[in-house]
């Protein structure tokens, strides 16, 4: 079974040289730590920065320089700043190659819910609805089951929807899943996890074709 760092590490293997990437808050942010050697990716922050650098040293901290999670960051060589309207222009016009988001639920048709739990949690969607409405390639990083043990990979989302039919791939602590017309296609198993176990923990339709390899991190 993967921990959150393992999930981030596995997603980092999806990065390709020259990609512009938007990483959401939480596990997705960790993906930046595992960019494969020899590959250059440029991270986009929807508040208005292209080219997010590492966290600053204590004596470099700058209140004017933050990422979309409101964390202090730095710039990289070739960075640029811009306003938030321009930033979402980049996103809506399809310039961002890959978006990695967290989710509360994903459905077998690629619907995603990650912004609201009615009556309980009201934080808002931030940029998530814009990202999922326009991004070409969306990977969800999430836990396979919730705290009560219920599957978060569902036939249909039960929580308010963030976007329809947009998720292409899901990486959880149990495995890697492509969204295909038949549902969640199991691509790789996490180390030590059986196909039977994954079936048991997946409410949506799970497609298993042939031998499923264990992932190599």
């Amino acid at each position, binding site marked *: 079974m993967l921990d959150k760092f393992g999930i981030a590490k596995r997603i980092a293997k999806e990065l390709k040289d020259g990609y512009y990437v938007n990483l959401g808050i939480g596990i997705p942010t960790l993906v930046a730590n595992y960019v494969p050697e020899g590959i250059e990716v440029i991270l986009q922050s929807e508040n208005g920065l292209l080219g997010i650098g590492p966290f600053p040293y204590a004596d470099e901290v700058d209140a004017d320089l933050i990422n979309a999670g409101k964390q202090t960051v730095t710039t990289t060589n070739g960075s640029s700043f811009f*306003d938030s309207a321009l930033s979402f222009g980049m996103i809506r016009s399809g310039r961002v190659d890959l978006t990695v988001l967290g989710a509360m639920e994903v459905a077998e048709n690629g619907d995603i819910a990650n912004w609201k739990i009615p009556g309980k949690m009201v934080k*808002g969607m931030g940029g*998530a609805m814009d990202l999922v*409405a326009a991004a070409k390639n969306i990977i969800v990083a999430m836990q396979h089951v919730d705290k009560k043990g219920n599957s978060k990979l569902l036939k249909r989302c039960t929580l308010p929807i963030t976007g*329809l039919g947009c998720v292409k791939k899901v990486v959880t602590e149990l495995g890697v899943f492509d969204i295909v017309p038949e549902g969640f296609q199991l691509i790789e198993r996490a180390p030590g996890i059986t196909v039977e176990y994954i079936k048991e923990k997946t409410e949506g339709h799970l497609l298993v074709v042939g031998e499923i390899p264990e992932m190599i991190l």
Partner: protein
Amino acid sequence: MLNKLVTNADEAVKDIPDGATIMLGGFGLCGIPENCINALVKSGVKNLTCISNNAGVDDFGIGLMLNTRQVKKMISSYVGENAEFERQLLSGELEVELIPQGTLATRCLASGYGMPAIFTPAGVGTEVANGKEIREFNGKQYLLEYAFDSDFAIVKAWKGDTHGNLIFRETARNFNPMMAMAGKITIAEVEELVPAGELDPDQIHTPGIFVNRIFQGSDYEKRIEQMTTRLKS
């Protein structure tokens, strides 16, 4: 002769009436008009509709105006940082319209560009689309969203001149340029105010025509919401 200079935040906001709709620049606590927010709290103006990406935190930014119950309605995209906000929302004391961040930015932009509405794919198939017109272009669905109509816009810039030209710094730019263009009356507070002619015209982000009032701000706290650092090895 252009006369946009006001002495301070109190003077800049003194005619904002009860029930006004105001835009406030900033993302999180970054690039927020700290001086004007403090002045609004002091003025006691109430029943405000505030358009701002976030609602501050409990003891800073727009959070200060929530504590004094001056805000009737918030239009924002993300409000997760503020416990008092969540309490007022769940108890029904505060009206809230949550909209996608890109939609928020672009509705400001449309207003400043003199365009009545935009079409965006964000929110199609979600509760954000309830009651809104949907139009199909090239086989994809888009929501009709209207330009904001705001009585005042209050922005914060790094540098400004006496003609109202503004330069922003790093990610403190965020919503400020679009909001500066979208207010019927735009108020700018700046960290450094210089005489017209001292800023390089090539570097101006917001041309002065959009700014009605400008003043030299003071005592900026520039609070950091999430301090994240790495260790020197």
